[in-house]
C-alpha cells in the first residue's frame, strides 16, 4: 500500500525542509535593523506618535539586552541578515512555481486546498476564507466582541489598546520581546465584553495574511469579567517562510471569573528560529489554558506563562513537542502563583526522532503570599532512536504556606511488547509505531479542535513513514 515515491518524498521532506528560497525572488529591502527601518514600519502603518516612540525605545532596549545565556545556542542568528519589513505587495511578486517541490508534495499528502497552499507558501498575501468566517464575524459583532488585526485595533480602539498593550510583557522583558516591540507587525486583537461567551473558536487562521503572519506578530487579548472564549492560531500544514527568525509576543488578560483557552499549532519550515514570549495574567477565579503544539522549525523556544495574581486563579498548560532531524524543541511553561488558593497544572509530552531533541524547561513559583496553592507538573518524553535526545529542566521555588507541589517526569522508548502485539495483528512496524506515538500524545490531541486533531494525526503519520528505520 506504500507508494514507491513516498520514501523519496519523505527523505526530501526530512532533509530539505531547511532550504531557503532563492534571494532573487524577493525585491531587495534593507537588511538589518535601524531607526530608519523602524520609522518606516511605523509610518507605513500611520501609527500615533506614542507607538512610534515605543518602537524606537524598544530598539534601544533590544540593542542593550544580551542574548539569553541559558538554553540552546542562538549563536547562528545574525540580526543583520534579517529583513525586518516587507509589504504585502512584495509578497505577491512570488509565484507558485518558485515554491519548492517538497513543500508542494507535502501539501498534496495532507490534502491542503490550493487557495490555502498559496497562502501557506507565502505566494498569496490574503487567504480568502470561506463563508463560515463572515457569519462568525456577524455573530461576534452582535455580541460586542472585537476580533481584528492589531493595526486596526490601534486605529479604531486606541484607548483599550493603549491600556493593555505591552503591560504584561514590556519591551525590557527579554531581548526578543524587545525586538518584537520594535518591529512588530500583524497579529490579532481580541476583546470579549463582560459575561459574554463566545461559542465558536476564534481562528486566526482565517484572518491572517502574509503580513500579519510576519516574523514579529503581536497578539493582545482581553477576556473581561465572567466571559469565556477559545482562540486558535496556526495550522498543522507546514508553513513556509523565508524569514529565518520568528519572534512573536502574546499577551492575554483573563479578568475575574473569566475563562480563556489559547491553542497554538505550529509547523514552521526547518530553517526557522521560532522564539516566542507568551504570557497571561489571571485575575480572581479566572481560568487560563494554554494548549501548544510545536512540530516544525529549526529551533523553538517557547514557555507560555500564567501570572496568577488574584485568589483562586488557575493556569494550565498542555503541550506537545515533536522534534526530528536535528530540530530542537525547547518548550515548557511557567506558573507563577502570586495569590492564595491558586492552582496550576502542566502536562508536557514530547517525541524525539531521527536526531531531534526535545527539552522541557519550566518554572513553578509559589510566592509567600500564595498560601494553600497547588501545582502539578507531568512531563513525558518518548525517544525513538539513539540519534535523538531529550532533556528536562524544571525549576520549583516554593515559599507559600501549605503548598502542595508535585512533579513527575519520565523518559521512555516504544515498548517492544506493544510493538509485537500490534504487529501480530498484521500492522507493519511503521504503522504500529505511528499508532503508539499517536496514542502517547492523544491526551493532548483530544483537547484540540477536531479538524486540528485529525490533521495532526495525519501529519505524524506522514512524518513517521519516513523516519522509522
Amino acid at each position, binding site marked *: 500500500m506504500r507508494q514507491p515515491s513516498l520514501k523519496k518524498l519523505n527523505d526530501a521532506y526530512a532533509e530539505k525542509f531547511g532550504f531557503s528560497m532563492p534571494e532573487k525572488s524577493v525585491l531587495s529591502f534593507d537588511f538589518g535593523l535601524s531607526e530608519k527601518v523602524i520609522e518606516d514600519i511605523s509610518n507605513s502603518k500611520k501609527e500615533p506618535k506614542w507607538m512610534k516612540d515605543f518602537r524606537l525605545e524598544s530598539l534601544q532596549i533590544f540593542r542593550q539586552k544580551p542574548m539569553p545565556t541559558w538554553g540552546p545556542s542562538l549563536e547562528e542568528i545574525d540580526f543583520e541578515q534579517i529583513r525586518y519589513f516587507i509589504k504585502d505587495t512584495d509578497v505577491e511578486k512570488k509565484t507558485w512555481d518558485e515554491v519548492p517541490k517538497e513543500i508542494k508534495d507535502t501539501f498534496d499528502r495532507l490534502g491542503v486546498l490550493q487557495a490555502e497552499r498559496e497562502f501557506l507558501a507565502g505566494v498569496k498575501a490574503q487567504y480568502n476564507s470561506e463563508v463560515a468566517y463572515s457569519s462568525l464575524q456577524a455573530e461576534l459583532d452582535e455580541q460586542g466582541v472585537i476580533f481584528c488585526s492589531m493595526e486596526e485595533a490601534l486605529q479604531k480602539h486606541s484607548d483599550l489598546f493603549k491600556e493593555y498593550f505591552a503591560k504584561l510583557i514590556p519591551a525590557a522583558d527579554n531581548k526578543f520581546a524587545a525586538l518584537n516591540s520594535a518591529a512588530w507587525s500583524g497579529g490579532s486583537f481580541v476583546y470579549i465584553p463582560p459575561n459574554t461567551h463566545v461559542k465558536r473558536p476564534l481562528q486566526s487562521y482565517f484572518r491572517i495574511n502574509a503580513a500579519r503572519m510576519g516574523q514579529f506578530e503581536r497578539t493582545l487579548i482581553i477576556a473581561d469579567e465572567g466571559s469565556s472564549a477559545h482562540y486558535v492560531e496556526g495550522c498543522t500544514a507546514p508553513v513556509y517562510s523565508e524569514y529565518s527568525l520568528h519572534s512573536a509576543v502574546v499577551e492575554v488578560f483573563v479578568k475575574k471569573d473569566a475563562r480563556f483557552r489559547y491553542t497554538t499549532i505550529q509547523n514552521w519550515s526547518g530553517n526557522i528560529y521560532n522564539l516566542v514570549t507568551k504570557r497571561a495574567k489571571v485575575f480572581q477565579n479566572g481560568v487560563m489554558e494554554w494548549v501548544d503544539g510545536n512540530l516544525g522549525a529549526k529551533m523553538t523556544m517557547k514557555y507560555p506563562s500564567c501570572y496568577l495574581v488574584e485568589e483562586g486563579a488557575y493556569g494550565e498548560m498542555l503541550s506537545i513537542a515533536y522534534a526530528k532531524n536535528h530540530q530542537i524543541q525547547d518548550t515548557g511553561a511557567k506558573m507563577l502563583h502570586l495569590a492564595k488558593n491558586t492552582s496550576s497544572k502542566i502536562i508536557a509530552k514530547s517525541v524525539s526522532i531521527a536526531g531531534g531533541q526535545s527539552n522541557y524547561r519550566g518554572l513553578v513559583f509559589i510566592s509567600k503570599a500564595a498560601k494553600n496553592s497547588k501545582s502539578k507538573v507531568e512531563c513525558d518524553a518518548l525517544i525513538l532512536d539513539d540519534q535523538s535526545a531529550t532533556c528536562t529542566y524544571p525549576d520549583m521555588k516554593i515559599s507559600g504556606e501549605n503548598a502542595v507541589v508535585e512533579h513527575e517526569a519520565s*523518559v521512555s522508548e516504544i515498548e517492544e511488547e506493544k510493538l509485537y502485539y500490534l504487529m501480530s495483528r498484521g500492522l507493519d512496524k511503521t504503522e504500529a509505531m505511528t499508532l503508539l506515538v499517536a496514542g502517547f500524545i492523544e491526551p493532548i490531541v483530544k483537547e484540540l479542535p477536531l479538524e486540528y486533531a485529525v490533521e495532526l494525526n495525519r501529519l505524524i503519520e506522514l512524518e513517521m513513514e519516513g523516519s522509522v528505520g
Partner: protein
Amino acid sequence: MQTVLLENQESFILEPEQDTLYLVLLDKEADLGKIKVDLSFNKSEVNCRLLFLGRLKSKSNWQIESNSRHFVPKTSCLTEFYLSQADESRVDYFGQIYIGQKASQTKSFLKEQSLVLGKAVFNRSRPILEIFNNKVKASHSASSSRISETDLFYLMSRGFEKNEAEKILEEAFFNKVFDSVKVEEARELIKGYLC
C-alpha cells in the same frame, strides 16, 4: 551490596566499581549545610543507590547537589531524598541524571520528597534529566507538601497533642524509607540518625 556513609565533606566525586548504597545523613544540628555528590558510572553492571536523609532544623539553610552520570551500558542508579523541614528552613536542591549516547540499558531514577513541618519554609528544586540514548528508563519525581490534615486530625482524635501527632507523622515519613533499606549496616546507621 556494600554500604558507604558519606560524611564530613562538602563534595564527593565517586566512580562506583561495585553495587553500593551511598548514604548521606544531613547534619541535624547544622545551620548552614552544603553537600555535593557526583556519581560517574564507568563500569557496566554496577547498580547503586544514593540515599539522602535529612531532618532540617529550624532556620537552617541547605544547598544540596547530586549528579548521576551514566557513560557505559547496563548501570542503574536510584537517587532519593527524604527531607523534613522545620520552621524557616531553606533547601536549594539541584539533581541531575545524565545518560550518554553509549549508555544503553541504563536505569536511573530520582525521587525527592520533602515534608514541611514548620512555617515560612523555602524549598527550591531543580531535578534535571539529560538523555541521549533511547534504550533507557529514567524518571524523576518531586513532591513537597505539609503533613496531611486528615492524618493529623485522626491522631488528635485519639488523644495526641498536635506536636506529638506531628512527630508521629514525621517518623512515619522516614519509616517508609527505613523499611525499603535491606542492608543491616545501613539500617543501623539510619536508625541512629532518626532517633
